[in-house]
């Protein structure tokens, strides 16, 4: 009998690697208010801080990611690995974890520049990709 692999949001190795990366992000950026790693189809893998986790941002981030990619497809402007929502009180950055069916979404307060928030998030996504590929 062929055993089915655990879905990403229940895979202990993915959860552990994601947890480590999000903790590292928190230490690097004091302006980080909330961050989550989610599956392409909107299941939360892990979030920081954990007490805010109810899966809602993960579901919304999944929809937003897919919608932004649909717009890019319609406009024929290539891939759209990043989504940035710049609002008055914070920046939401989300991006694909390269090579994996995962997305990292993070909320920074406005004390952070958009460039720094994007750079921090991109670095975290790349580190997570490396950690998952080498496991």
């Amino acid at each position, binding site marked *: 009998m062929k055993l*089915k692999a655990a*879905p*990403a*949001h229940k895979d202990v190795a993915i959860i552990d690697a994601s947890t480590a990366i999000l903790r590292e992000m928190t230490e690097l950026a004091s302006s980080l208010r909330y961050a989550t790693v989610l*599956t*392409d*189809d*909107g*299941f939360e893998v892990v979030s920081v801080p954990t007490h805010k986790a109810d*899966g*809602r941002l993960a*579901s*919304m981030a*999944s*929809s*937003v*990611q*897919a*919608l932004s*990619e*649909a717009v890019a497809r*319609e406009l024929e402007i290539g891939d759209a690995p990043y989504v940035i929502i710049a609002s008055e009180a914070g920046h939401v950055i989300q991006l694909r974890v390269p090579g994996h*069916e995962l997305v990292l979404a993070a909320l920074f307060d406005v004390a952070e520049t958009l460039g720094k928030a994007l750079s921090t998030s991109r670095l975290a996504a790349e580190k997570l990709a490396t950690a998952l590929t080498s496991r």
Partner: protein
Amino acid sequence: MEHIILFAGPMGAGKTTAIRTLSDIEVVSTEAANTDREQSDKDTTTVALDYGEISITDEEKVRLYGIPGQRRFEFMWRILRERAEGMVLLVHIDAPDAVASVREFIIEFFDLVERGGVVVGITRSDMAPGPTITDFTDALELQLPELMVPVMLVDPRDRGHMELLLMTLVANIETRAAFGATLETEYSA
């Protein structure tokens, strides 16, 4: 004239397929890799919306919006239902409790049932055993005694089936609009 129709129903019912079958334009889809294989053993799932269009006449067009089937995307349900005039509810006959699923979606989208209309398409009836069409109509009659909800067995890949289902809904919406009829029934769960 334009109509805006929502395609609702549980994951795996065939909503994306139905819109692709009906649409005259290339469908805008937002599919992601499906990790929930226990719920439905398919490769991808809609996570935001599907969008297509079909022209009935030169002057009459129907905009088709498909919503994700999973409740965790309920915020998309709320966004997309606001402008909709009616709902095509698709439920696969081998859903865990297909009759209950129809009732649940009718409750969830009762505002649409009240102001526009609903038709129910039962899918996969040729591929799996399940409740009879009478089981569905009896349940709906009990739930909505003042309203006749059309229920059809359909294949979402079949344009004829889907056109019949959609046109039935459009005719109901137009008839209701023409006569100014309002649904005067209390929801009875």
